[in-house]
Structures are given as C-alpha cells and as structure tokens.
C-alpha cells in the first residue's frame, strides 16, 4: 500500500550547520505533504507544507523541496540550533472519505553545540 518513508533514521550535526532530512514517498497521486517536528513527550508540531503544484517552499529557516519525478521530499534547516533537536516526520495526506495523514518512520536530528 501507500507509504511514506525516510532515508536515514538519525542525523547528527553541529550547531550552525545546515541540515537536510530526506523522505521518499510511494503514492504518485499524493498532492499534499507536510513536515512535522516531534520533541520528546510531545505531539507532532507542524513545520511546513507543500502542494504538488510547487517544487519549493520556504519558511523561517526551513525549506521544503519536492521532486515529483523521483517522489522525493526534503526538509532543509538553515543554521541548525540545539532547539532543533527532535524527531522529524514527513507525512502524506490521503483523502478517502476523510483525511488521513500517512507518516514515515522519522529521522532523529541531534544538534551538538
């Protein structure tokens, strides 16, 4: 069935570096994708989203890139800070009598100062 997965389970960076977290999706019909950040003991927090009619979207220190040809998403975090340490999930919106978010397994980002 359809699923969204992440390439790497962990990523370690130094404070101030740029981080790139990758995600591959399998449903070519998907048209809406979201990146979530989940800190320990908390629920997922919305970071940024992108629709399939775009290939790039920028937020504050974050950029999401969408490559529909190879069904690949990436999240770029500029000047990574210790507070960015968390688990990051990409999610795909699945619409069938309601809206379900299909999450991948997540990438744990560790930022050392």
């Amino acid at each position, binding site marked *: 069935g359809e699923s*969204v997965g992440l390439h790497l389970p962990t990523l370690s960076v130094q404070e101030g570096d740029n981080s790139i977290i990758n995600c591959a999706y399998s449903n070519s019909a998907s048209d809406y994708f*979201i990146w*979530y950040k989940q800190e320990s*003991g*908390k*629920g*997922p*927090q*919305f970071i940024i*989203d992108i629709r399939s009619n775009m290939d790039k979207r920028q937020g504050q220190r974050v950029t999401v890139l969408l490559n529909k040809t190879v069904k690949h998403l990436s999240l770029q975090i500029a000047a990574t800070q210790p507070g960015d340490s968390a688990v990051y*999930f990409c*999610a795909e919106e*699945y619409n*069938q*009598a*309601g*809206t*379900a*978010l*299909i*999450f*991948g*397994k*997540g990438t744990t980002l560790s930022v050392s100062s």
Partner: protein
Amino acid sequence: DAGVTQSPTHLIKTRGQHVTLRCSPISGHKSVSWYQQVLGQGPQFIFQYYEKEERGRGNFPDRFSARQFPNYSSELNVNALLLGDSALYLCASSLDTQNEQFFGPGTRLTVL
C-alpha cells in the same frame, strides 16, 4: 488559546481490560482524528470524526472504536487490550476534514 488537550497523560492497564482516552479539540475545530504511535515509529491513522460522524477509518481491528460529542470532544475506546496496544495515542483537531491538523501531547498507554 488552549491547544488540543488529552487525558489522561499516562495510563497502565493489563491485558484484556478496556480503556477510554479523551480529547478536547481547539475551540472552533469540528474535526478530531486519532493516531497510534508505537515507540520508534511514525503515527498511524485510526479514525477521523467530523460533526459527530466517522469520516475515515484506518486499518485497526474492531476492538478500537471512537465517538465525537456535540461539543466536538472525542473519546477513543479500546477493548480486550493486547500487549501490542502499548503506544502513544495522539489526538489531532482541525477546522474541518480538509484543514491542517493540530496534535495534542498524547496519552501514553502501557499494557502489562
């Protein structure tokens, strides 16, 4: 403004028991969705409710049920608990079924 609230925060049950988890959505939100997050995995969709009606259901057994009340709060019920039901249960609310979902902190269920 208060975000999505869930109760209880933690819960310990034994196999075969029944559990009820509660969720209060953000004020003005009419849709509530439930997700199960097993340790080390991403959340898995269980149900979506809108205006007190079930609008979507994930691949979970009939032991899982839910309902939404007139004030848009929701309950998730799980019968005949199994060890594998141990997880973080997340509730998310949205204005309707098509808008951004905001997640609560979750209820940590441990089944012994």
